[in-house]
């Protein structure tokens, strides 16, 4: 992969221009001649007398760069708790030593593409497939199957905070008993009746 500065530039270009031809004059307004020449030298871009465009190879590298930048930005902001200004500084450092294997680990730490707006990588698809088999909203759990509560999205529905008092929180085992007249769930403490809408915000894992 290219160095940190080039990675950021490639990510920006892939996002902004895609594979389309751009007027060289317009591109030069944002990037230095030296940067453009370096990209062309590595076969990431084609530069004619009046136009500029990313090559297939450049576009692929750009997409990967965009993913790396997005993942690391979220990592800095959410895991390290850095401000936007601090993130900009750290990004250069982290991008410098990034490898595809490391990027996957960072991606795992932030919870993959389906919980953030970032380009999906191979690890995201793999995790999605794995979780689809095990973690699912309560309204997709078959009747009579035991499941472990993984996450309750109380930010979406504050009334779900009541579940804590009714004995449902991450780590507790529940079983969907029947779907009529509402979703009826058996817990260690007793039974609950919930609307379908609310069950969509409770994520469980089959045990």
């Amino acid at each position: 992969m290219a160095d940190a500065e080039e990675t950021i530039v490639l990510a920006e270009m892939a996002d902004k221009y895609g594979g389309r031809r751009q007027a060289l004059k317009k591109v030069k307004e944002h990037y230095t001649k030296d940067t453009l020449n370096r990209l062309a030298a590595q076969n990431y871009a084609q530069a004619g007398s009046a136009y500029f465009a990313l090559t297939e190879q450049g576009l692929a590298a750009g997409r990967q760069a965009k993913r790396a930048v997005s993942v690391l930005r979220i990592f800095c902001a959410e895991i390290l708790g850095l401000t936007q200004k601090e993130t900009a500084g750290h990004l250069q450092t982290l991008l410098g030593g990034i490898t595809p294997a490391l990027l996957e680990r960072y991606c795992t730490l932030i919870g993959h593409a389906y919980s953030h707006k970032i380009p999906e990588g191979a690890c995201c698809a793999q995790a999605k497939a794995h979780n689809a088999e095990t973690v699912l909203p309560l309204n997709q759990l078959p009747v009579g199957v035991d499941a472990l509560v993984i996450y309750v999205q109380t930010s979406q529905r504050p009334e779900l905070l009541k579940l804590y008092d009714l004995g449902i929180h991450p780590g507790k085992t529940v079983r969907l008993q029947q779907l009529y007249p509402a979703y009826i769930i058996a817990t260690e403490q007793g039974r609950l009746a919930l609307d379908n809408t609310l069950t969509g915000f409770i994520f469980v894992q089959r045990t």
Partner: protein
Amino acid sequence: MTKTLLLIGQNFSGKTELFHNLAENGRIKTIYYPQTGIPYEESFTRIGGERCRLINTPGIYTLIPTSEYEIITLDLILSRQPDKIIFVMQENTLKSSVLIMIQLAELGIPFIVNYVRSVSGAAYVFDRAKLAHTFNAEVVFSSPVFEPSARELKKALERGSKPRWVGNYSRAVEKTLQTFVREFQFQIRSKISLRFLSLMLLLGNKNIAGWLRRNYPPALSRKMLKYMDSRYELANAFAIANRWESLGGNLCRAVWRPEQPRGLRLSYVLEKYSLKFIWDAVIAALSLIFMFGFVNLCGSKMLVNFFYRELLGKYFIPFCTYFLTGWFGDGFLAAFFVGPYGLLTTGLAYALAVMLPLLASFFFAYALLENSGYIDRLSLTFNRLLKLFGLNGYAAPALLFGCCKIAALHKTRTLYTRRERALSLLLLIFFLPCVSQLVIVFNLLTIIPRHYALIFLGVLLGQLFILLNLRRLLPGGTGSHYLSELRPLHLPDPGKVFSAVWAYTRWYLRAICPLIIGISLLLFLSDAVGLLGLLKNLFAPFTVVFLDLPEAFTDSLILGLFRKDLSAVSLYDLANNGMLNSIQVLVACLFISLSAPCLGFVSELGRQRGWRQALLIFALSTAYAFTIAALVNKILRI
């Protein structure tokens, strides 16, 4: 300096109702918290002869802020430094409420607990003395139906003393807290305990740090924050949270003992079938037939007959009339007590001899179902149906109180959102008639040709269709969703049923009775100054020209202002005396069924939404009913 009282509790715990109960009339100010747009209310109240500021804070689940509401509540505690706190808790949110109480005990400000529990469906045996002793805090009971007496609360507030800690933390945490308190106790003057401040700093609470920076000299606040920073470890936060969790769990077990329901085996069949397709509707229908059949047989036919017709009609009223006219002649004073709109003959007679027996029998049937745990099942059964109207199962108990619409409207106050309250109000005004009125209207419909009765039902169904579509126009999003615990069904406990009947009856006597008596006084005064006669003369041409009804119908209308069922009875008499033909009966039935509810309902509406809105709703619904009845009349006469 004016003392400050803070009202704290979880969302939908009944804070606002309590606030309105305590606040000085008409002096409630809604304030929007800067930069958030989240409102909180402020007013004044008198405690022990002293005028205190009363603040109703946004709902919280913990004092460690995780949401905007919690940040605002903590900010209000810090900035207003209340002298006393009223904590409102509900039986169905025990764990989180106990957690808040533990945090309040650390806060060091005297607090009292307003414990809201179900009247007859209580799931726990509650040790009031133990809770009061644990926190050194007074505990006052209330129920979702009636507010606690303001006097009882105020007395508790007068007595309120410094709370007691409920337990210690690990040795390392305790040492840090004690050192902090020792170090800064002479430099910080605050009603909030230093122990609470240091605990919050150990938990990494940024709001407390900001408050210290804003309110104390930079050198002092820097010293405090530096001290706590040096001792801040993530492990401390976990240790404190775990300790609270275990303390809360132990307290819950010590204070609340789950009640052992009786007769579980007997209810097994009901338990199973009350949640099965079709069967749930069958059981719900049977229970409603039982409930309203009981009200009709026991309340309406036996008790009202005995109290109103026999006791009052044959003995008490003639006796009073004889004595009062003997003493005062046929003048104003005699009319005030025993005249056509007199206090004894209408106000007290309807409130105590008609409504009270009717409602007491309803309360008995309702308490029986509530105590057996069936009311929750009924709510669940009606959940899907009510969703069509933009409501949910929570609205079912309120609509069941439709036996008397004033009571039903009063109960809708417990619904979660403004939109739900508005929708249930629309249903009560335009679709659900008073049960006693409904019986008479159906009797009237049986004496007219069947196709006219079908027109009546068609208009009501059309109205229902309009309501179904109208809900989309109301602002306020999708409303709340149904989430409830399903307790096992069991045999009712007679003691609890009777105490619930007494609780509901006391609520009726305190909340509804004064409205009925007030309306009777209003009618008497209107009659005395000639306003009633003027109204009759004013409306008579309209009823004659547009509705083609005789002038005598205006008397039924005036009675309808007082009680809708009386209006229906008067109409029944007119029809039986041959003064109305079939079309006239249909038009009159339509008008009294669709028109604005009685003045008692309007008074309750005024209490909830303000007089301007109540009168507007009254005028609009009357005009609407008049238009529909006039249209049906003119179409049938083409």
